[in-house]
């Protein structure tokens, strides 16, 4: 079986020094990966390459079996509907309510939004935002924004979920809860890639999921050993 997302000898630089050199990465269907590394090491950059916000300078990246260089902007749009993304700085349409924002992927994809409303309510309960569903995004607290962003990323139960530090602003209990949501999705066969700097969270997940931990070090992505 082909991996859903596959980097081969991928290299990248923002114009200054290299961020990555010869990175190989395979995200197969149903896998769960944590991505760690010190601040500024390139976690966000790597994830952006996985959802075509950035193109590799060298090497190849294939997403759903297709080379990203062969995609035009419409193809990218279609791919994005199959990948749920949580940005590190969660952005919303500030003039739409939280619920409308979470349903936005459904609307943009041209689906009948009403069929996702049941899903929405369940998700809102999970991330404890039911009370805030009619609030506008600027009225949310930092942690509430992260939860809303995760809800938006998974509303269409995409095949891949990429979450960039989705628990940075959350207390321990809530962080656990979101992680469990991702683990649930993974158990349903979704592929998950989650960046985090919280080793405790990774350790705590051990009982419930067999996740691999990737670490960025020396412009490369390594599989972390038993040193956790």
């Amino acid at each position, binding site marked *: 079986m082909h991996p859903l997302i596959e980097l081969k000898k991928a290299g990248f630089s923002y114009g200054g020094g290299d961020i990555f050199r010869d990175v190989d990465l395979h995200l197969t269907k149903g896998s769960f990966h944590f991505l760690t590394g010190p601040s500024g090491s390139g976690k966000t950059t790597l994830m952006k390459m996985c959802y075509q916000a950035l193109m590799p300078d060298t090497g190849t990246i294939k997403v759903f079996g297709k080379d990203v260089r062969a995609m035009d*902007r419409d193809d990218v749009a279609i791919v*994005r509907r199959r990948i749920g993304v949580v940005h590190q700085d969660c952005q919303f349409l*500030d003039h*739409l309510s939280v619920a409308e924002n979470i349903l*936005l992927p459904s*609307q*943009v994809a041209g689906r009948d939004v009403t069929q996702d409303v049941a899903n929405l309510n369940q998700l809102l309960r999970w991330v404890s935002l039911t009370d805030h569903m009619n609030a506008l995004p600027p009225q949310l607290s930092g942690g509430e924004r992260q939860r809303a962003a995760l809800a938006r990323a998974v509303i269409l139960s995409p095949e891949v979920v990429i979450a960039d530090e989705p628990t940075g602003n959350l207390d321990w209990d809530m962080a656990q809860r979101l992680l469990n949501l991702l683990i649930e999705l993974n158990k349903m066969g979704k592929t998950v890639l989650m960046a985090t700097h919280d080793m405790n969270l990774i350790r705590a997940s051990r009982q419930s999921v067999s996740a691999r931990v990737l670490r960025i070090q020396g412009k490369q992505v390594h599989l972390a050993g038993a040193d956790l």
Partner: protein
Amino acid sequence: MSILNSLGDVFGGDKQADRIVPPTGFTARLTSFTAAAMAFLTVFALALSLATGRLADRWSAELAKTSTVRISAPEAQLAAQSTAVLNILKTTPGIASARLMTEAEQHALLEPWFGSDLPLETLPIPSLIEVVEQEVGPDMEGLRLRLTAEAPGAVLDDHTRWRRPLAAAAARLRLLGMFSIVLILGATAAMITLAAQAALAANRQVIQVLRLIGARDNYIAKAFVRRFTMRATVGAFVGMLVGMLGIFALPAAAEEGAFLTGLGFRGWHWMIPLVIPPIAAFVAFWSTRFAATRSLDRMA
């Protein structure tokens, strides 16, 4: 994509998709206001253009483009000189026709000064030749020289010539009106383009969010294009209406409307400003489309 389809998209509208663009904002008002102001100015430029057009036509028509040649000579030579003058005039380029005036006509000319009972027959009055010029009149100086040479008693009097520049001035004003309409149209297109680009730049975050969740560029562009076209059209309509009310209310137009100075519309000319909103819609549609496509390409 055909133009008709695109315009249909704009006015048919996808209420749902429209909401993705933040509803208000000063760029919005700016667009409407610009369209309104420009439509308003266009109505005035149009009225000016039409009024001066009427003026020019009237003056041109009234000019009749005539001159007179007067031949004062002893009775014996009068007929010979008249014939000579008529021959010269016939061969002069720029002259449509020339003919000797009848006695009755001469009488009519003198009536304002002498009343109708002047015994013309007893007077040594000169012959008068009426000259009708062509559009581009003759070379008056050359004509004068030839006349003096061949008919010493002939005097050329192009007494209506002084009015001609008035007609030219009116025609110039009409051209100026047209020119300013074109200018206004160009300025409007540029302003709406810039306003749309400003709006797109200000909504960079909105666009990033939409792209992140898989919106096609076309979907995003359409939402903006729809919004701006609607605003420009409504603005232009309001501006046009206010402009027409203004023209209608101009007291002068009604009062002296009988004469050629009224700056109003006449009859079906009142329909002309109605083309302004559709033109504004068209201009806005293409300016915004251009702006949106360009901005989205740049943000790629």
